[in-house]
């Protein structure tokens, strides 16, 4: 049957997360984190660990709570609503699932409990300098030399590399293959000699890095999964990360709509609240339509992923839709707020800048519309 309601447990998670962020994560903290070189507060991180969020989708045998992908999306939505800047996404949403999917029992046993206890920060190093977002454009190579692989290459837009303990690197080990065939995944300690990183200056202040691999030697045991099969592990992890990112974007878009409507009710010009004027009413109505439309496709896709059903069209559709919809919502919000919403002190710019980062992460709308075009059979 068609039912949009969350279960009781899911509602509890949503409420707990919302209360947590309302209490512990004011916008002043967001601004401090943007200025802070590390980009996370260990104290906040610890509190999230205590709530079991780091292990939310990890099996109990690794210290997790065995939650579903849907639970993760609900949590990500609340994080988006709070405008969270934190290593949670790169560690829990992207990194840990890759290890869960590809890792040997030994690797999983060693690393996943540390994720659950908040003692390990992970990130994925996939994309490289290129004119377009292209997850298949990997030239970083890994050559076998005795008991080690020697890695050379440059990765760009690697989230949190500067604070990560471990980087999951995607290297091309079979140069005769194209796209994601011939990929191998490696677990690399960030303190390995030859690995250097530079924090990039981004408009949203989130922590993205260039990571350079200069003859970095990595033991053979650090291969994650099977040699040359890295692409297959990545696909599922990135599909889920994409939809979780969409849930995050839904949360921030929803918050922007609420902020705009609240302001429209209070702000008086020409003797009346501006929310009584049709121009403002229609802007807000359009925002509401777009955010409601997003909720269905995102959670429908989350359910499909949770059940292991094929949903390539839906994943691309979600990311394309929310990317452009949130952009339009931000622009309309700026029109509702007027000049005050254009000041650095105001909360809206935090969301607008972050919205662009989210849009560019894991493929923007044009990228995903091309995926949809292929899915349509063109």
């Amino acid at each position, binding site marked *: *049957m*068609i*039912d*949009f*309601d*969350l*279960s009781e447990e*899911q509602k509890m998670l949503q409420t707990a997360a919302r209360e947590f962020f309302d209490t512990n994560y004011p916008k002043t903290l967001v601004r401090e984190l943007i200025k802070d070189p590390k980009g996370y507060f260990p104290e906040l991180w610890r509190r999230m660990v205590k709530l079991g969020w780091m292990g939310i989708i990890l099996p109990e045998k690794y210290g997790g709570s065995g939650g579903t992908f*849907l639970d993760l999306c609900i949590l990500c939505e609340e994080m988006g609503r709070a405008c969270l800047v934190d290593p949670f996404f790169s560690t829990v949403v992207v990194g840990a699932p890759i290890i869960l999917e590809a890792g040997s029992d030994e690797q999983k046993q060693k690393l996943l409990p540390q994720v659950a206890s908040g003692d390990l920060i992970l990130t994925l190093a996939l994309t490289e300098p290129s004119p377009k977002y292209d997850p298949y454009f990997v030239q970083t190579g890994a050559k076998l030399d005795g008991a080690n692989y020697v890695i050379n290459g440059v990765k760009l837009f690697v989230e949190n590399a500067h604070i990560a303990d471990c980087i999951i690197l995607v290297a091309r080990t079979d140069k005769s293959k194209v796209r994601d065939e011939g990929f191998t995944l490696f677990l690399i300690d960030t303190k390995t000699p030859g690995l250097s990183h530079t924090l990039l200056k981004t408009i949203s202040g989130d922590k993205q890095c260039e990571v350079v691999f200069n003859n970095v030697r990595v033991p053979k045991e650090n291969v994650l999964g099977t040699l040359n099969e890295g692409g297959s592990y990545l696909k599922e992890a990135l599909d889920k990360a994409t939809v979780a990112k969409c849930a995050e974007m839904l949360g921030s878009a929803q918050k922007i709509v609420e902020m705009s*409507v609240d302001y*429209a*009710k209070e702000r008086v010009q020409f003797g*009346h*609240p501006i*929310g*009584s*004027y*049709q121009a*403002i*009413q*229609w802007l*807000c*109505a*359009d925002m*509401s*339509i777009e955010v*409601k*439309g*997003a*909720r*269905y*496709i995102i*959670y*429908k896709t989350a*359910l499909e992923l949770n059940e292991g059903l094929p949903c390539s*069209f*839906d994943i691309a*559709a979600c990311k*394309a*839709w929310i990317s452009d919809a949130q952009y339009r919502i931000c622009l309309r919000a700026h029109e509702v707020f007027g000049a005050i919403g254009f000041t650095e002190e105001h909360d809206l710019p935090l969301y607008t800048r972050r919205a662009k980062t989210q849009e560019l992460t894991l493929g923007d709308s*044009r990228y995903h*519309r*091309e995926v*949809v*075009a292929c899915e*349509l*059979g*063109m």
Partner: protein
Amino acid sequence: MDFSFTPEQEKLRQEVRDFIKEHPPENYPCELEDEGYGFGGCSREFTREMGKKRWIGISWPKEYGGLGRPWIDMFILKDELARYAAPTMAHFYIDSMGVSIVAHGTEEQKKEFLPKMARGELIWATALSEPDAGSDLFGMKTTAVRKGDDFIVNGNKVWNTLSHFSDWLLLLAITDPEAPRARGMSTFVVDVKTPGITLRPVADMTFSESFAEIFFDEVKVPAKNLLGPLNRGFAQTMESLEGDRFWGRMVRPVATRRMLDLMVQYCNETKHNGVPLSKDTVIRDTLAELAIEIEVCRGLAYYVISLIDKGINVSLEASHEESILKTFADELGRRAANVWMQILGPKGQLWKGSKYVPFEGEPFEGVIPFQYLFAPGVGLAGGTTQMQRQTIAWRDLGLPRA
């Protein structure tokens, strides 16, 4: 959270497919062509076939000729029929009138009308708007004055879709000129053949006469034809527009997807300078965008039916959700219609029967320019897009009135 259908619901879809095999839409010529909404063209014969299956009243009480099934079954039925562009327009207003009569009719009215409507033998139209009363229904002037056992109706209505094909009308008229309009209007069911009624078909931008003007000159409407309580007609009318807002728009996703699939095939098969149109990046991006918007529209429709399925009286308690669907669906339809025209290029302007017309001899011949020309009208019918946005602002977002 769940977005799946039960085995029984899938079975209903299969029954629809079987029905379409036995009654292919091509075999039912239409008096009015498929305007692109998704509920097809107007064929009284097809409507009667639906009536034989008791599908018109699939969710009406059994004692009135319906099947007494949940509303979601009506949703599935219409959704599946739209996949084949089944011509169901003739019973478009039977749907909403059925709900109105079940909710507000006397036992006598229910017995007189519902069984015939369920069989598809009684076609309805509405008589609401007037030359001076479009979005502002309170500007209307048609009066119904009590005289003995009758009400005498005088006035003139316009934009009455299907009225010149219909048997009965839902009339909204002023019954208490002194009261504020919201409490001074009543709804009546009126036989189109009543002396004093004149219908004058009006051609729309597609050249087809899809609506008519109706003139009432001293028309005697029996008092027993009052539908619902006296002077409560306005609220009832707004409720009954759910038939338009929701049921008329939930078919959009499937209908537009049908056209999208046609255009994808067309682009794959049509070459220019040796290269299929489907390799054009602008076409790829544009068709992908429409495919995505169709899914968004589907979600908005699913949300409304999920509320109705829970027993919520959406048209009363959450009509803004219907407004959200209608706004998005109508604008999507307009965008899509223009995209198909753009892809067809100069040949898009060719009417059915013209030399060089695309899809010659197929059911799609001439459909795209016709639906393109009808598209601006879609957002005007059943409450304009501007009025829908107003409803969203007031009821969904709680924004203040001016």
